[in-house]
């Protein structure tokens, strides 16, 4: 089960094979853009009608399903991105096996068999811990590995449920406006909660990639019998965790707030609530995306450290 969530291919997997995850992910990306194109055309039509009198109901209906479809389009592309990240994860483990297989033949014999002194060392990439065996996964890495799949599943379900509700809302615009407004609040809250879950799933996948880099790097060094150097958690990684948690909390908050607004009767109160809730839900996604930036920066740093360590092993043997 652990290997399944780490997406670790079985030993002997064809390392030359093209990634199916990449194909599926990019296909989902194109589907998402096609859906967004449909909402753009819909928006142009709605804008034209908005300039004419007596078309308020039609414009309202177009806006209702367009919102649901646009958020579904973003969700589809984000899900595609998650699938591609799974492909990266699988490919990283194939890389670990390849480096394990090749390094014994590439390293200089001179440094082999040197005594390992556990402790810490300073590197150009920050402080690293030296140990005899590969480090155990950190709590955050174990959490990330366990949670990326449920988060993606919950996100996809919430976004789709919101889209279906937006279609129901469309049928109520002009017929029962109070109900349609209430449903509008539920659609926004549900779909952005789903988007938040999807981005959290992507964040947890990035966390799993970081955990795999740490574990895989340790395994390679341990298999060679050299001191296992593991980069200490950089500041960017700590900030990533904080921003991800904050962003997810904002999305949960906006969902609860929209659920409350859905019970309001007064049009003025509803309008003012919608006015501040829209940017809040977008800011929540912005915070999650900011966390993703820091996760990617951390991956870049971890890769730089790993390459420098491989070069060191090849050059000195230890």
């Amino acid at each position, binding site marked *: 089960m652990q290997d399944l969530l780490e997406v670790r291919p079985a030993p002997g997997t064809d*390392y*030359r094979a*093209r*990634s199916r995850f*990449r194909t599926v*992910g*990019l296909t989902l*990306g194109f589907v*998402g853009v096609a*859906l*967004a194109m449909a*909402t*753009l055309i*819909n*928006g*142009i039509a709605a*804008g*034209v009608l*908005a300039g004419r009198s007596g078309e308020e109901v039609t*414009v309202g209906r177009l806006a209702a399903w*367009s919102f649901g479809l646009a958020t579904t*389009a*973003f969700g589809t592309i984000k899900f595609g*991105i998650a699938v591609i*990240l799974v*492909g*990266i994860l699988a*490919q990283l483990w194939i*890389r670990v096996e*390849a480096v394990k*297989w*090749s390094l014994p*033949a*590439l390293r200089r014999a001179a440094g082999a068999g040197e005594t390992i002194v556990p402790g810490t060392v300073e590197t150009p990439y920050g402080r690293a811990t030296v140990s005899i065996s590969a480090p155990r996964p950190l709590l955050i890495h174990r959490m990330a590995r366990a949670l990326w799949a449920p988060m993606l599943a919950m996100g996809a379900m919430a976004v789709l449920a919101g889209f279906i509700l937006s279609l129901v809302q469309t049928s109520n615009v002009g017929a029962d406006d109070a109900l349609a407004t209430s449903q509008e609040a539920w659609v926004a809250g549900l779909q952005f909660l789903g988007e938040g879950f999807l981005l959290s799933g992507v964040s947890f996948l990035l966390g799993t990639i970081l955990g795999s880099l740490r574990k895989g790097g340790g395994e390679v060094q341990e298999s060679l019998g050299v001191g296992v150097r593991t980069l200490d958690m950089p500041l960017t990684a700590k900030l990533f965790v904080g921003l991800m948690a904050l962003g997810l909390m904002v999305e949960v908050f906006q969902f609860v707030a929209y659920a409350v607004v859905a019970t309001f009767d007064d049009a*003025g*109160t509803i*309008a*003012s*609530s919608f*006015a*501040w809730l*829209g*940017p809040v839900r*977008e*800011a929540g996604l*912005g*915070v999650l*995306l*900011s966390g*993703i*930036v820091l996760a*990617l*920066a951390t991956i870049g740093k971890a*890769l730089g450290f790993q*390459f*420098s360590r*491989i*070069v060191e092993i*090849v*050059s000195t043997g230890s």
Partner: protein
Amino acid sequence: MATIGHTGFRFDVTRRALGFNLPQRIGRRLWLPMLVMALMAFPAGVILAAIRANEIATGGSADTIAALGHFVPAVNFLGFASVFAAISFAIATILGEFRSGGGKVQEAAGRNVETLRMPGTAKLFLGFMAMGMMILLGAVALHVVAGTAIAGGSSYALGKTEQWAIWLEGIRRFGIATYLLGIAFGLSTIITVLRFQVVRIRELPEEVRIAG
């Protein structure tokens, strides 16, 4: 430097490791400034939205409410454009680490350095990223123009505000989708690079053995 294309990849062969290429160097320098800009834009959008909500709740002027209705998405989507740029630049930095690090390992092993040429997905990554950014920044600029016109007392702009808002919303959505697709291409390039490096590192022991 020679370009060779066996094993299904097109790559350059050099004696020494290549460093980051131009887009990767730009990415390494700009991901953080873009992130900082995004982290400033989102709270600013929330503050403007709170002012607008207060205007609506207290029966404020239609001009102010309509103008803020354009300024809020302008600020928020400036934030999205910045954060997507930061993500794209961070991906470019990762690709740079692979290019530079992969070369250094081959150089340390005393072998020719084979560096993957920019794959088609990387070119699409740059293309969609540029397109997404231009669409989003275009929409932001038009929102600012509309908001400024309304704030300046233009009754024509006030009359057209709903229509413009609907059009710009559609454009913004398409811009976001395009940007996200660009990011998907950037990430899929990492898979290609990893595949190439796995094939290359498995070739090295045999080359070292033959070279003695």
